[in-house]
């Protein structure tokens, strides 16, 4: 097994850097000495088996949990994030798996929920629906999002479109880091591709994207680097262009000779002999 560690580049471009993050729940050490750095304009995939600590790490970064130990450096400053609102103010946006959209409200209302624009003509008391709608279209066009109308309830959108709305909403706060928790879970083939395109567009905008996914195909398709967690510890950071899927899977499962990697190796052999 060859683990290719990414060059430790702490210099320019690093937006978020975690050092020695640990988190315990009672007798369980959920995270131990996690190191992670994410650069601007980079998609960092976070992978690991069930219970590896991905969700705990994401929630720690998002301010849902506070770390017991370790430091977080954001934009060159050491920060402590006490609540999700603080994380958002700093510029760390998170799209959780359940998206947290209000089905009864339309796309514009969902995008601006909690930070509605108000019309100066009414001394800031009434909502400025026109400006919100205009900016919604602008944002959705920038993301090349395929939403037919922003004045229909979110309930009538497809899974991919709902994911798009949730991601677009996270961008309104002008974040530097966007964390996506399983954005392609439960999506069809075309919708998954749509969301992956969206992730690439976030990267083009110079955002640092942290992508949590179980789907290795998605990870290999869109990520620049992959950080593997195993049993709450770092288990290697891989540069996607220089790594094979099997190596990452080996790091996830913690063994080179296991059912998954054997199977993958056998299949690649068979494909190789077939062609």
């Amino acid at each position: 097994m060859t683990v290719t560690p990414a060059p430790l580049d702490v210099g320019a471009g690093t937006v978020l850097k975690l050092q020695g993050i640990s988190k315990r729940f009672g007798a369980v050490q959920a995270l131990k000495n996690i190191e992670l750095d994410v650069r601007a304009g980079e998609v960092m995939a976070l992978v690991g088996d069930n219970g590896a600590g991905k969700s705990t790490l994401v929630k720690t970064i998002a301010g849902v949990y506070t770390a017991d130990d370790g430091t977080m450096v954001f934009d060159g400053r050491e920060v402590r994030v006490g609540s999700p609102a603080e994380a958002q103010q700093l510029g760390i946006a998170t799209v959780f798996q359940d998206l947290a959209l209000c089905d009864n409200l339309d796309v514009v209302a969902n995008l601006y929920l909690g930070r509605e624009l108000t019309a100066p003509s009414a001394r800031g008391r009434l909502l400025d629906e026109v400006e919100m709608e205009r900016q919604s279209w602008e944002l959705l066009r920038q993301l090349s999002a395929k939403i037919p109308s922003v004045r229909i309830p979110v309930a009538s959108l497809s899974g991919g479109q709902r994911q798009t709305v949730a991601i677009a909403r996270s961008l309104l706060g002008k974040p530097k880091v966007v964390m996506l928790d399983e954005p392609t879970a439960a999506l069809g083939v075309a919708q998954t591709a749509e969301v992956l395109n969206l992730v690439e567009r976030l990267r083009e905008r110079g955002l640092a994207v942290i992508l949590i996914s179980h789907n290795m195909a998605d990870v290999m398709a869109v990520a620049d680097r992959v950080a593997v967690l195993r049993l709450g510890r770092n288990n290697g950071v891989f540069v996607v262009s220089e790594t094979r899927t099997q190596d990452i899977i080996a790091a996830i499962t913690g063994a080179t000779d296991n059912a998954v990697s054997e199977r993958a190796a056998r299949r690649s052999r068979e494909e190789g002999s077939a062609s």
Partner: protein
Amino acid sequence: MSLHGSGTRPQDANPDQSDGGEPANGTTDAAQLPADLQDERLIARRGVSGAIAAFTSRLRSGDLGSVPVVVGLIIIWAVFQVANGSFLSSRNLVNLTLQTTSVGVIALGIVLVLLLGEIDLSVGSVSGVAGAVLAITFVNKGWPLALSLVASVVLGIVIGLFYGLLYTRFGVPSFVITLAGLLGFLGLQLLVLGKDGTVNLPYDSALVGFATRSFLSPAVAYILIAVVVAAYALTRLQGRRARAAAGLSSAPNSVIAIKAVALALVLLIPVLILNGDRGVSSMFLLFLALVVITDIAVRRTRWGRSVFAVGGSVEAARRAGINVRMIYLSVFAACSTLAAVGGILAAARLVAVSQASGGTDTNLNAIAAAVIGGTSLFGGRGSAYSALLGALVIMSISNGLALLSLDSSIRYIVTAGVLLIAVTIDSLSRRSRQAHGRA
């Protein structure tokens, strides 16, 4: 192109057209279209016929809005008019507006609570105790009228905040909290009223005058209508200009004009009839003003948007940074305050407060009115106008049956039937909306 059919517009058909040729060709169809109409999947609906087509397709998908209640109201009025020719007389309709007001004001509070997906069963008791506090402080203690009014309204606010605190701090279901309130404040009302049980308000006091003898003169009523219609048309035209400036689609002038004329007729015809007798009651006008203010508050302010969001998904609202606790507190407070105001108006109109004030009737009528008017019991859907329409339905039934000299037994049965129909329509349309992706 042909795939799209005549009703749709291609967004980027013939992209090569935009590259070469004259500058006029440089702007394709898409560039000329408003930003919100560029998607090729959208079905084009323009002009008056487009507005009508959009309306009917909305109805078909189960987004009924206030259509069922308006239809129901017309049927009820027609039936009663056939049964008793004096039902739609000016005199009786003026009575109907007076009867509707207090229930309507209370129902307005219920609408707010229902928007959150909660319920307040105690509005009747709260209205009763507010009336009792007003009567005792004003008549027996000799307080100035203004002070008594303030005391009653503040009592409503305090009760609502108390409910909100219980709900947000301890998570007690609103059904149980307000059920306790229903009993508790009925007890408080009996306690406040003491042994006599009935307190008469002085007939010549300003409050009773406002509720029973104050009517708009015809000229004032017509001027008011003109002002309202002009304000409506101006707002719509301003909105149209703002949308056009922002590159968005907007309703054509013809649609705005038709809507303004329809509004004028809806206001003018009832006022013409009411002016045949005493005219538009000031108390009813107060109710209408409260409805309009509530409508603007829930549709056009951040607070109202938050109320709808909490009613749709509490967790999503919390994650969006909405102060959910404050929303619950403010809505429960607003509901109890409106209940107190309704109680004051009821006391003023009946010129007395008794142990029966705000009894079971008031409570159930107000809740039924909000639901009949089209506010969903499931939260996140509804409109302030449902309080007005629902209260009109409820009070028309009670008024019409009284004209036919049928006693309350029949009235209860008929009201129950209408309520059941309304709730069934709500549930059915909810299912249909889900099937049509509009839930």
